[in-house]
């Protein structure tokens, strides 16, 4: 027995303390200067940012920065209020109108982060007598939304339609009247795979379940007007709620949920992660509004996906064990040994490329990943530079047998 609240963290602290010290430590690195959506000064060296989720390169978009600056100067640095009390400006409403237009939905609610949007929507919608059915590989915010709510939580095998069918059939057999919320993601961020929404929505609707799709990694990236995977796969009319974030393609911070449900606005009165936190600052609201307008009318998607295919193809031809296929903006290689993965990360940063080291439990199937998320703002030269460094480090660490020929051709 112990009174030490921190004792339970000893195992993780021990792991943490065994990591390399200083500039080779993946979890203490910081950026001295940010030069553009794709470059920063790290450890005194100009470094390519290869894992930022800045899919559209919106963080330095001139129109977005101008809009943010004007809002900052006219409306101040923050709202110091919640959406319910003092914290709703006309610009918050305009942002919600912009979202409605973007998704062509009747309703939109803006949250302070995507994490809170999932937390709020899932925990509030599914009450004590209801069920939430989630994909096994769901993002932490979805798991946490389940933990915060009072519904019965059931998990189905990742992207497995038959398994979803089984779980729903059992729920319905025991409880013909229960409300059911099925939660899916458009793109799963670690390996970039899409949910087979056509099948999953068909099955969910057969059991009269509501469907929520988290398009955090797909807004801007997929669909004719950038609405995401539901649009890409032509199933938008089947989806009850779309959750998303401004922290990736939109280039700032914030979350939202859109819906056509006639009673959707009720959530503003009951959703605690919406009510009991401060609303987004005006500058963020302004740049998000501008970025959504730009995304709907841009063709950065084609450039982004071609960047991703270039890196994915190059890594695969070089002989890396691939976690991704290039169908999404994610490029990830699998590294069997965790220590090799950590060393790989350290070598890459020394070579001037900042990739994501993704380790279990944040990864599916306990994979160790060196993960890149491409940006439409990456130049071909930057992609080829990343590839060259991946091959250099992979060869050095013995992950590649022969120096591959032709990969840069």
């Amino acid at each position, binding site marked *: 027995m112990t009174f030490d609240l921190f004792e339970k963290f000893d195992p993780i602290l021990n792991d943490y303390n065994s990591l390399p010290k200083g500039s080779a430590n993946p979890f203490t690195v910081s950026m001295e200067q940010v030069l553009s959506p794709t470059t920063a000064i790290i450890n005194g060296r100009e470094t390519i940012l290869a894992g930022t989720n800045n899919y559209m390169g919106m963080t330095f978009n001139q129109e977005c920065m101008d809009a943010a600056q004007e809002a900052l100067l006219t409306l101040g640095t923050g709202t110091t209020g919640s959406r319910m009390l003092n914290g709703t400006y006309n610009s918050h409403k305009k942002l919600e109108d912009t979202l409605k237009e973007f998704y062509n939905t009747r309703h939109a609610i803006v949250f302070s982060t995507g994490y809170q949007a999932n937390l709020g929507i899932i925990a509030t919608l599914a009450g004590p007598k209801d069920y939430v059915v989630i994909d*096994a590989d769901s993002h932490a915010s979805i798991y946490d939304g389940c933990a915060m709510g009072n519904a019965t939580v059931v998990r189905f095998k990742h992207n497995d339609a038959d398994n979803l069918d*089984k779980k729903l059939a*059992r729920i319905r057999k025991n409880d013909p009247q229960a409300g059911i919320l099925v939660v899916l993601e458009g793109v799963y961020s670690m390996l970039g795979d899409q949910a087979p929404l056509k099948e999953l929505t068909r099955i969910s609707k057969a059991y009269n379940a509501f469907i929520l799709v988290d398009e955090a990694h797909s807004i801007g990236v997929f669909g004719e007007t950038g609405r995401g995977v539901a649009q890409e796969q032509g199933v938008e009319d089947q989806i009850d709620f779309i959750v998303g974030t401004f922290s990736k393609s939109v280039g700032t911070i914030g979350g939202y949920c859109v819906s056509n449900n006639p009673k959707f606005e009720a959530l503003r009165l009951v959703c605690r992660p919406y009510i009991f936190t401060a609303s987004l600052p005006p500058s963020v609201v302004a740049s998000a509004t501008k970025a959504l307008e730009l995304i709907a009318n841009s063709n950065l998607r084609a450039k982004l996906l071609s960047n991703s295919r270039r890196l994915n193809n190059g890594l695969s031809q070089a002989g890396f064990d691939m976690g991704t296929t290039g169908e999404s903006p994610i490029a990830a290689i699998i590294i069997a040994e965790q220590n090799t993965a950590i060393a790989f990360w350290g070598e890459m940063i020394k070579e001037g490329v900042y990739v994501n080291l993704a380790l279990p*439990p944040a990864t599916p199937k*306990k994979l160790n990943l060196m993960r890149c998320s491409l940006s439409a703002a990456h130049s071909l030269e930057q992609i080829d530079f990343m590839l060259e460094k991946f091959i250099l480090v992979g060869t050095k660490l013995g992950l590649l047998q022969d120096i591959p020929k032709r990969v840069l051709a």
Partner: protein
Amino acid sequence: MTQTIDEIFEQICTLIAPFNKKNIPITKDSLFSVDLELDSLNVMDILSEIEDEFDITVPLNMLPDLETVGQFAEIVKQLLSEQ
């Protein structure tokens, strides 16, 4: 044809086997985390296998109270009897 707790336990052991990489002997008192060295993701996957094997719903919400293999067997027996 209700199953006995021992039969259920045996069936669960078979489901755990693929996760039990070191072939640690399993008893009803085996703790998933300590004795079997399984993390919460493994336990969730095992739970999912159990649901499909016994054709029952075992809510994730129950997991915090399920620390041993024997407790899993008991909850399965209880859920089967409620059907």
